[in-house]
């Protein structure tokens, strides 16, 4: 595994911070479990990680709201997420670092130079390319320039959040900044997408940890997301699923069904088409997730989620317009127009039929007319 800036082993760092072997194995077992690995992978992961050099991580934020970073750093001290920050060498992060201006730029250049070809590049936010990249610049460089430069020396790129993974909200129609996901800009590097708006902290750290431990990319789905976390839909693992099967649905957010915890499908829950670990890993240290709090899933870890109609329209509704579902009036207008066209064709068709009928019944009249 690649070395971070101070070349310390993870084990040394843990000892220095007073983390016991037992606590560390517990952490690795929990991480292995979250990644759906075999139970024996926990201790093996701990051993591998203990002897691994701390990998250098460069974290770049582009067109984003910092929600993903908030999620990444969200910790319940002393929690396992804090530990993660001790086992990697976070060499550059413009949100966390104290340095600013030229000092920050120098830190980035140094980190990339010292670990060229080895560092983990984490990208947060989409990359705006409109107006020559002027919508997102730092130190006189556009996001697209910085990304291309940083990607050259990266061993792997981890896109944290839906914006860097799929473009997210900046990419949504009409995309005024001509924003793109990282995959549209960088084509020659291994890329892992950890989507979500924001992603679950344990999913970010778990993905990072798996790469650090094994040195390999995890199994990815067709959207380059780790299957361990994005292999199932929210709906498949939702505790409200039995109510869906029973046909019990909340009709509004404060009706009896909602109070009884019935399925939120009719209220627009996108759980059936959303792949994420919210229903299993959950949020805030495993406390809850949006559906448990009474709101349907908005499908934030899926590509183009913002442009897929209303967040409050059920999945099976007709998506008549980009902004939402159909209305009976629109259906009536379309049907009336189509019936009118069909009516004209029908009348013409019947007229032609009558003419044929007349000609077959009065052949002599027809001959006289033609003669």
């Amino acid at each position, binding site marked *: 595994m690649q070395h971070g800036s101070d070349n310390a082993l993870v084990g040394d760092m843990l000892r220095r911070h007073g983390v016991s072997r037992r606590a560390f194995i517990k952490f690795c077992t929990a991480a292995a479990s979250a990644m759906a690995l075999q139970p024996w992978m926990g201790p093996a992961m701990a051993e591998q990680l203990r002897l691994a050099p701390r990998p250098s991580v460069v974290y770049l934020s582009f067109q984003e709201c910092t929600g993903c970073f908030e999620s990444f750093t969200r910790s319940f001290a002393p929690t396992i997420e804090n530990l993660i920050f001790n086992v990697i060498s976070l060499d550059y992060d413009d949100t966390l670092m104290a340095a600013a201006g030229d000092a920050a730029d120098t830190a980035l250049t140094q980190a990339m130079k010292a670990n060229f070809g080895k560092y983990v590049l984490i990208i947060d936010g989409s990359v705006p390319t409109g107006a020559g990249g002027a919508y997102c610049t730092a130190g006189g460089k556009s996001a697209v320039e910085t990304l291309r430069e940083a990607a050259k020396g990266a061993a792997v790129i981890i896109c944290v959040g839906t914006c860097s993974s799929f473009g997210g909200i900046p990419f949504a129609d009409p995309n005024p900044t001509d924003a793109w996901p990282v995959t549209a800009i960088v084509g020659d590097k291994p890329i892992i997408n950890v989507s979500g708006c924001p992603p679950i902290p344990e999913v970010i750290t778990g993905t990072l940890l798996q790469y650090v431990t094994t040195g390999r990319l995890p199994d990815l789905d067709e959207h380059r997301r780790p299957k361990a976390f994005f292999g199932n839909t929210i709906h*498949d693992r939702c505790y409200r699923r039995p109510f869906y099967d029973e046909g019990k649905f909340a009709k509004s957010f404060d009706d009896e069904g909602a109070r009884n915890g019935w399925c939120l499908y009719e209220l627009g829950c996108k759980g059936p088409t959303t792949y994420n670990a919210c229903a299993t890993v959950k949020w805030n240290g495993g406390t809850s997730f949006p559906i448990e709090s009474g709101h349907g899933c908005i499908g934030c870890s899926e590509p183009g989620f913002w442009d897929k109609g209303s967040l409050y329209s059920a999945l099976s509704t007709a998506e008549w317009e980009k902004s939402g579902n159909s209305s009976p009036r629109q259906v009536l207008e379309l049907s009336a127009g189509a019936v009118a066209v069909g009516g004209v064709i029908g009348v013409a068709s*019947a007229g032609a039929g009558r003419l044929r009928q007349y000609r077959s019944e009065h052949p002599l009249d027809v001959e006289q007319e033609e003669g």
Partner: protein
Amino acid sequence: MDLLSFARGLGLKIAIAVFCMGVAWRILAFALLKIRRDFNRPREPILKYLLGGLITVGSRSWPHREFIGRTGAGEALGYSYHLGLFAVVLLFTPHIIFLGSLFGVTWPGLPSSIITIISVLTLTLFLAVLFRRVTNHVMRMLSNFDDYFSWFITMLVLVTGLAATAHVGARYETLLAVHILSVDALLIWFPFGKLMHAFYIFPSRAINGALLARKGATS
């Protein structure tokens, strides 16, 4: 635009437009055809032969006593899968939500598990109907591409719907998109194939019955 957005957006719009246009076309082209005048004096007053038409709609919808042994099973099969289809289309909650988004009216549905059972039974009946059509010599001779394609497209809607509910074969959104696309295809095919019997069956029975009643015959 992804497949699901197309299926329930533009694809559905096109399908509804073609369906409405085709149905209006076929009905008007049929209704406005010249009917030969019957110069015979009617045996019954006009109200009676109109009533005869209505009675025929009912009497032809039930097996005739004399033929019940030969046609009863076929009619039972026909009724069963039609009722199964109606139950699946009209009483499955996601379908109700779908229809509600189009027409603004909703109604209570059945539990998904019951709908799944009805769907599987309907599917079995569909296969039985095809088996009967293929193995019965007369029916086979009477059948053409239209019969088989109409069967296929209705079956496709049922199978893709079951697959989407059971999450079998692909990701849910893909299955849902394929299911809605199959509905779009059915709507487009509907006016031009034998599925149009949904609109023709009762008027044609009524017209036949009325014409017979005019001559003083019962049917």
